[in-house]
């Protein structure tokens, strides 16, 4: 039994009617002022053009055959009377007939054919690249930086290890030379000299790079020096009888002979291969080399007396933490 109190489910109002908010005269004046400003503001040409373009695009994308508007259109009704049921006009077997009107394409300026699409393509590509980069940055920036730092550290340590190798080698040779007798300063110096002229290939690959790079730097320096000197050497020389050998040397007139490493100019695939390795791997091999050759632990900084290397916690850096 329906009573009057019961909800009238046919009622069209939902919930409470929103109360009209009464605005004060001040608010009203402000609102009107605001609205007036918006209305009165003269739009810039660019704004107008953009608005126009937008309006045009909207109008162009709306089919007149769809929606309620079409049914009311007299033109549509006339066509319907002629048997139009949607689709294209013309005879039935004309498959090419247009369904939609052609779009007018507005051309600004005098850009040649293909320029717009070319620009667009380039922009697209650039945007894609940018996006990729952004992604990489976001996800891997920290990783990459950490890795780079790690690599640089390893590289530094590898360089240090190489120096250790050289020093070890020198000490070993000195020891050998000492065994042969004559342990004064000059012989060591001479020995050192011979060391640098010894063929690169005879140096173990793990630290050959160190020597090679030093020799290369030296060669370049000398070549530069020669080049600077060469312009003066070409001039006719004035022979001064008073000059003795020391004078000549001081004046740089004696032809300096360089004892370059003989195979410096040769290709060295073995070294290239080693150089191409990751710094950590280089370091690992160097550490191993030092252990095997000299019983030296790079991490302990200590030369053990025998190959067992008792007391060294292990092969890696972590082992020494």
């Amino acid at each position, binding site marked *: 039994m329906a009573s009057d109190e019961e909800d009238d489910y046919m009622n069209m109002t939902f919930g409470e009617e929103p109360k009209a908010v009464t605005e004060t005269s001040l608010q009203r004046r402000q609102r009107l002022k605001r609205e007036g400003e918006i209305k009165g503001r003269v739009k810039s040409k660019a704004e107008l053009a953009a608005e126009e373009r937008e309006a045009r695009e909207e109008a162009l994308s709306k089919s*007149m055959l769809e929606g309620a508007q079409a049914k009311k259109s007299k033109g549509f009704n006339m066509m319907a009377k002629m048997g139009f049921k949607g689709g294209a006009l013309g005879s039935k077997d004309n498959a090419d007939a247009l369904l939609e*009107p052609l779009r007018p394409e507005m051309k600004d300026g005098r850009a040649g054919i293909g320029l717009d699409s070319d620009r667009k393509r380039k922009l697209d590509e650039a945007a894609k690249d940018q996006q990729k980069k952004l992604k990489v940055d976001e996800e891997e920036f920290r990783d990459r930086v950490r890795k780079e730092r790690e690599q640089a550290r390893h590289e530094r340590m590898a360089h240090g290890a190489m120096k250790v190798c050289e020093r070890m080698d020198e000490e070993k040779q000195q020891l050998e030379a000492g065994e042969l007798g004559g342990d004064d300063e000059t012989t060591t110096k001479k020995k050192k000299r011979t060391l640098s002229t010894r063929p690169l290939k005879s140096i173990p690959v793990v630290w050959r790079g160190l020597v090679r790079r030093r020799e290369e730097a030296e060669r370049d320096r000398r070549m530069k020096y020669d080049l600077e000197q060469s312009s003066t050497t070409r001039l006719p020389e004035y022979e001064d009888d008073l000059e003795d050998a020391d004078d000549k040397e001081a004046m740089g007139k004696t032809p300096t002979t360089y004892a370059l490493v003989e195979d410096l100019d040769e290709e060295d695939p073995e070294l290239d291969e080693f150089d191409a390795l990751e710094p950590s791997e280089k370091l690992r091999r160097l550490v191993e080399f030092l252990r095997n050759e000299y019983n030296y632990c790079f991490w302990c900084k200590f030369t053990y007396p025998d190959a067992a290397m008792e007391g060294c916690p292990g092969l890696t850096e972590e082992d020494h933490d």
Partner: protein
Amino acid sequence: MADSKNSSKVSSDKTDRKRANSPYADATAKRLKSESKTEKPNPYLAHWEDESNMNNGFSKGSPFKAFKRRQTTAKQAAKAEDSDNNPFTGQPHSQQYFNILKTRRNLPVHKQRQEFLDLYQKSQILVFVGETGSGKTTQIPQYVVYDELPHLNHKMVACTQPRRVAAMSVAQRVADELDVTLGEEVGYSIRFEDKTSSKTMLKYMTDGMLLREAMHDHEMSRYSCIILDEAHERTLATDILMALLKQITQRRPDLKLIVMSATLDAQKFQRYFCDAPLLAVPGRTHPVEIYYTPEPEKDYVEGAIRTVLQIHAGEPEGDILLFLTGEEEIEDTCRKISLEVDELVRETDAGPMAVYPLYGTLPPYQQQRIFDPPPNPSKKGGRPGRKCIISTNIAETSLTIDGIVYVVDPGFSKQKIYNPRLRVESLLVSAISKASAQQRAGRAGRTKPGKCFRLYTEKAFKEELIEQTYPEILRSNLANTVLELKKLGVEDLVHFDLMDPPAPETMMRALEELNYLACLDDEGELTPLGSLASEFPLDPSLAVMLISSPEFYCSNEMLSITALLSVPQIFVRPAQKRREADEMKNLFKHPEGDHLTMLNVYHAFKGVMNRGEDTKMWCHQHYLSFRHLSSADNVRAQLKRIMETQGLELVSTDFHDKNYYTNIRRALVTGFFMQVAKRENNKIYRTLKDNNSAVMLHPSTVLGADYDWVVYNEFVMTSKQYIRTVTGIRPEWLLELAPVYYDLETWEGQKDVKQALKAVAEKMRRRNAMKGGK
């Protein structure tokens, strides 16, 4: 005699074949049967192919004695052409005739005359492909005349042309070739000018004219053969004619149709006409090398100038053809190139170069200059001179200039485009089609192997250009066409078999517009007003305006305005003398609008003419186009004749009456109520109803800022939008004169406009009430 027997035998042979090949084999067969049954000559069909009757028609010595209609041979025709007397007029042939005859026989198409006749006689519809320079436009109609013998059966041969100028010049040429007077045996008929007589047997006409004729003669019964020339251009009228003739040829088996096209895309025509046979005649062409740019151009005009100069500096002898888009651009480029070439000549040993513009609205004598020979070397033994023609796409197909060896193609042309959703028809610079580009390139190979420089990349050519230019019917407002079709008796517009049917919305919009103009009723039937409007070769809105003008006592004035709107711009504004031109224009200025200003000009022009002064001089002094004003005068006379035959009164309000101009403005509203804009703020107007866009008054307008409501003649869509040729009106008139279009009950346009109009309606109501109260 022997000849005649022979040919009849051949022809019977052919009719057999015809039965098999003709697209309408059944109908043809029926007709043949009925003919063979009637032994006695049927007097009612005397105009058909009654040979006995025909032979009697010839005087004894006539070169046509042995001719049988639609059974002649090339040999017979050649003999008749060689005879001393003109077979059509009986007059002796002039010497000039024989001179021309010699050149005619060198044309490529001449070699295939017999082949053409064989196919023509065999089939009702024939597709003929001949590249430009093959001679098809002048020769084929003559071949048909020699076979149809139209002077005997009193049915003409018609040849349509898309352009008026072509129709006129070709008719003149063919009259010379046949040694007859233009306007007699050979004539032409173009809008607002008919140069034919009762003797006319071959008629060149614009395609639009033939369409107009068909409105009163649905069967095209005056013609025995219709030739649609330049069908590849796919003008609106040619497209409609093709669809109409496709129907008529089924009803009229005696009507022959030849569709002539200059491009090899003829298969489409063949398919459309139920696989009609095709005959192709090669043109005289040489190979053309095509060059593309490696990178897209930043500025195609700059690129074009650069390319022309490079050609001039580095390529051997030969003229240059550069395609640009419009008058202004062309004139501007002409100047720039001339200056650059002067410099080139001063600094290097480059030869002289003459630069000529070419576009449709150029006066004929200036157009003629493009045929001048190139300039001579500036000094003896110097490098040869050359000419450079800068043209719109009229040099693409319609005009043939010999000597062109280099073509520069930036790939653009101005094209009309209409979109029913925007309701705006405008000329836009658009990329051309591949077919167009090919056509342009071909222009370089007319005299010797040539080169075509395309100012776009090969990739852009392949990927960005459409295959074929869209036919006009897809790019036009169809209001006029729909009205014509209705008048042509086409009931079912939806299934009308057009080669390329327009989009449904375009048709819908056209029907709607005609309904608002009261040319069609709600059922889509032609109203008396619509029927009357279709008599005028005008846009329906202009026609309706003209028809209603007597009600406003200004039909004389509206006639003038309509004529002025039907010709190109009458105001001349040379680039160097803009200020002087504007000052002169101000002399005629009417503050209420451009239509009235134009009317002032016309009245002044007529005044000068009536006083017997030198109108040409006067026009020159006042920066007006004499050519366009005279042509407007001519158009007016033609329209006046139509008004008179339709029984429309020619009246004027007294000039001193204060309502003289008001009446004219009110009459304008009857035609242009769908082209109204309301002012939004100082400079911006907004067009009304569903065509809702912000526009500015075109800088050329004389209208002061006093009017909030204006009618406009033209919507110019560029990067900015303008309305052009504008006159101020009062909003009351809209409600009063176009109550259906401005029905506020069903208004769905802008709300503020509705409010404004409502206020106006209220004011009107009160005023009327007050009047009633008094």
